[in-house]
């Protein structure tokens, strides 16, 4: 273990969040659970971006602006995804993603 908290610590944390999110997307059958997984993934990426910004003084502003864009787009994505989920629920009376199989050949 190193003396101070360095960039790699934040990157490990970001990696953990990313993997948790990916597994969450894969295992949850509830459509909203999948959405929760996506949020986790985006947060892992955001931690990386802000950590890079902090540890590389030349790109302090860039990292934060990138993170801000990710947050805003994630909010938009969540709104659209929930609208789709509601539509799905209206048509199928459930939010189980395994029932969305009409397009299966």
């Amino acid at each position, binding site marked *: 273990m190193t003396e101070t908290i360095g960039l790699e610590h934040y990157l490990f944390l970001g990696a953990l969040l990313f993997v948790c999110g990916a597994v969450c997307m894969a295992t949850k059958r509830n459509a909203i659970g999948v959405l929760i997984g996506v949020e986790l993934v985006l947060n892992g990426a955001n931690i990386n971006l802000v950590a890079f910004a902090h540890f590389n003084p030349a790109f302090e502003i860039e990292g934060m602006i990138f993170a801000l864009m990710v947050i805003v787009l994630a909010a938009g994505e969540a*709104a659209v995804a929930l*609208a789709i989920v509601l539509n799905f629920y209206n*048509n199928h009376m459930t939010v189980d993603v395994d029932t969305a199989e009409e397009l299966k050949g």
Partner: protein
Amino acid sequence: MTFSGEPQATKLGRLRLPAKQRLPMDDLQPLLFWIIALMMGTCAVATVVTQNIVRAATWLLFTLAGTSGMFFLLGADLVGTIQLLVYVGGTLVLVVFGVMLTAQGPFINMKTSGAEWAISAVVGILLLSVLVIGTSKIGHVGPPEKSAAARFQPTYTLASQREVRDRLELERGRGSIDEDQYYLAIARLDKEQVAQASYSAVIGRGFIGEPVGPVHEETVGKSNKTILVRAHYLLPFEIVSIHLLVVLIGAAYLARAKRRRRVAA
């Protein structure tokens, strides 16, 4: 491994802002990091493991709050605050709202089979090990010379920024500094503002199209003249605005009340 890319020092030392003091945040950083990181890790795993969707959202709440804590530790107060406002106050409430609108009974469970769990766990562990090995390759990167959280100037407002900018403008008008020096001095000012954790103003100026990025040289024209260039972020800002408008209309269209179609028996 070190980074370089600080803007070059100018001779305009007297135009610098007052000296900064060191705050205890730096010494506390490791302790706070470990506390928040352990909390986040536990909650992220709990989000995945739990079968109840509202509980998953609650664990996600703690993870997101921890993320914003990490942003505060990294000196990114603005991003941390926006994280809290948008994610916790907006997106998560929306998610729970969605759960309430789509629940057939209270506390819905949708079980995942053991085989799915096994496959996902294996893939997840593989992915994690790839990422961890890749990250280990870069070795230890210590904090930079200055720590943003440590250098906060309390009464540093837009007015005092304007004052320094006006003085620079004046110097340029008199001809005592040339264009490049002026440009570098402005860049230096931005850097110092960022170092004092007052960068929300710098980000805002970047969004309205003023150059705020790192200074680099660029060759233009046929005469091979080099000029100093900095990036601005007007275009991403505009794109995001239009994107949000489209999302607003799209979500309202998709989620509007419709007559429910019967599922064919």
